C-alpha cells in the first residue's frame, strides 16, 4: 500500500535532525459514494464560483480571506500565513519526553505515522528504539495547514506514530455535570465489580465490525449487475484540471475537522 504523504519536514531531537514524511494512520472505512448528475450520470466536480464575475474560478485565482465585518474580507496570502510560525511549519522539535501513562486519554486527538526520508533512516530507527526502551514519548509542537498542534511522538512496533493532542484550554470543564462528592455505596460497587470480573477480556478491536458499512455493502450487492449506469466518457484533462493545491489543503482541513 502506498501511503500518501500529508507533510514532510524534520523531527528535531536535541542536535539530531531526522527528515520525515507524515502519513495517515487511519483510513475511514465508510463506503465512498460519488455525486452524479441525475440526467446523464456524469460525476460532479466541486468548483468555486465568483458571484461578481459570474464565472468559475481556477485554483490559482483563489486566495483566503478573514472576515473583519459582515461581507468584508481581509485577503491573506499563503506566504503570509506560512510566515506566522516558519520554523514550526518545517520542524517538529521535541521539547521533552513524557510517560504516556500520565496523559489523560481525553487529550488524544488524531493519529498519524511518521516515515523516514532518505538519509534519516538510522536516526529514525534509533529514536523509535530508545523511546521503546525507556518507555517514554516525545512532546512537540508543529504547524500543519495553518494550525499549531501539540503532539506526542510515540514508538509503536518499531515505527514512530504522531498523535495530535488537545490543548488543555479546549477541554470543557465538567464540574457542573459530574457529581461532586457522591458517597459510594459499597454494596453496589462490590456487586458491579463482580459483574465486571465476569466480563473480563483482552482488547481485541477486530471483534467489532462497522454494522452500517456491512449493511451498505449488502444493499450494493443486492443491486449489483442489473442496476448499473454508465457515465458518458470525459477526457481526463477536462474532468480533473490542474493539481489543485488549495483544494488539497482544504481537504486536509476538512478531514481534520471531521475528526471532531
Amino acid at each position, binding site marked *: 500500500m502506498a*501511503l500518501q504523504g500529508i507533510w514532510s519536514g*524534520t523531527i528535531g531531537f*536535541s*542536535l*539530531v535532525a531526522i527528515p520525515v514524511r507524515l*502519513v*495517515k*494512520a*487511519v483510513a475511514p472505512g465508510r*463506503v465512498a459514494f*460519488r*455525486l452524479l448528475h441525475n440526467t*446523464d*450520470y456524469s460525476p460532479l*466536480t*466541486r*468548483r*468555486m*464560483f465568483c*458571484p461578481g464575475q459570474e464565472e468559475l474560478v481556477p485554483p490559482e*485565482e*483563489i486566495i483566503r*480571506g*478573514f472576515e473583519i465585518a459582515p*461581507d468584508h474580507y481581509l485577503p*491573506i496570502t499563503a506566504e503570509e500565513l506560512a510566515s*506566522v510560525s*516558519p520554523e514550526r511549519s*518545517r520542524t517538529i522539535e521535541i521539547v521533552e*519526553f*513524557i510517560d504516556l501513562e500520565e496523559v489523560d486519554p*481525553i487529550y*488524544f486527538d488524531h493519529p498519524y505515522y511518521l*516515515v523516514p526520508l532518505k538519509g534519516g533512516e538510522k*536516526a529514525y*530507527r*534509533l*529514536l523509535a528504539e*530508545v523511546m521503546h*526502551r525507556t518507555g517514554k514519548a516525545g512532546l512537540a509542537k508543529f504547524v500543519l495547514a*495553518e494550525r*499549531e498542534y501539540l503532539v506526542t511522538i510515540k514508538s*509503536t512496533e518499531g*515505527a514512530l506514530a504522531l498523535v495530535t493532542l*488537545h490543548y488543555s484550554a479546549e477541554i*470543557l*470543564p*465538567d464540574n457542573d455535570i459530574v*457529581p461532586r462528592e457522591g458517597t*459510594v*455505596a459499597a454494596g453496589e460497587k462490590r456487586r458491579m465489580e463482580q459483574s*465486571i470480573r465476569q466480563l473480563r477480556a483482552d482488547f481485541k*478491536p*477486530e471483534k*467489532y465490525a462497522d*454494522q452500517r458499512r456491512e449493511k451498505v455493502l449488502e*444493499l*450494493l450487492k443486492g443491486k449489483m449487475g442489473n442496476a448499473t*449506469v454508465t*457515465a458518458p466518457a470525459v477526457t481526463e484533462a477536462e474532468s480533473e484540471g490542474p493539481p489543485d493545491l488549495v483544494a488539497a489543503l482544504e481537504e486536509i482541513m476538512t478531514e481534520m475537522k471531521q475528526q471532531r
Partner: protein
Amino acid sequence: MAGGTIWKGIIHFGETHVPVKLHAAIKEERIQFHLLHQRDGLKLQQMMICAHEKIAVPSEAQVKGFEVEEGKYIIVDAAELEQIVPESSRLLEIHEFVPSAQIDPLFLDHVYTLEPDATLDPGGYTALVAALQELGVAGICTWAMRKRSYHGALQACGKALRLTTLRYADEVIAVAALELGEIPLSERELQIGSDLIKQMAAPFQPQKFVNEHQQKLQQLLEQKARGEKVRILRPRLLPPTTADQLLERLEASLKKAV
C-alpha cells in the same frame, strides 16, 4: 461550563443499569478563513459541476453512485440509505471489560463526558466510577444515537465517566504498510540515546502549552487590517543527521543537556 445534552441513554451490563446524559468533552476555537476571488476579493460559492455538460447541478439533481468499475455506477437513493438505520434504543450495552492500558491511542476517536441522569439514578454512577477505577478497566460497548451505531470505550477519570468512540480495527493502518527496513544500531548509540531521553524527561503538564500560532496569526491579521506591511519569513531547513554523524551528534546533545 459543559455543553448541552447530546443523547440520553442507559449503561447496561449484567444486573447494572446506569442512566446517563452525553455531553461534548472538547471545544475547539480556531480562526476561520473563507475562499475569495483574487481579482475582486469576493467570497466564492461552492458549485457542483457536471463533468460532461459543464453546468452547475443543484442539489435536487444530484444522486449518489457507487463506482463498481471505471465510469460504471450503482445508483443508491436517499430512501434506501435511510433504511439502514439502527433500531432506535436507549441502551448503551457493555459487552466486555478490558484493561484500559491495552487500548492504543490510535483507536480513540471522539470523546464525551457522561452526566448521571439524576432523576433516575440513585447512585449507580459513582459506584461505577469507583469500580472501573479500582479494576483499571474500560467497558467496550455499543449503542445507537442520531441514526448511527457506535462502538466505544467507557472509562472512569477522576469522578467522571467518559465515553470514547473507537475506530474499527480495519480503519487503523498497520505498521507493516510503512515498509520500514531493519537498521542495526550499536549498543553505544542506544545507550547515549536513552540517556538523552532521560535527561529530557518531564512530567506531562499540558497547561504549559498554549496555541502560540493562533495568537501570532491574530496579531498578523490585526496588523494587516491596520494596513501595515507584513514581513515574509521563510523556514530554515535543518540538514538531516546522517548515519555516520549519528553517534557524534548524540554525544554532543548529551553534553549540551548536562
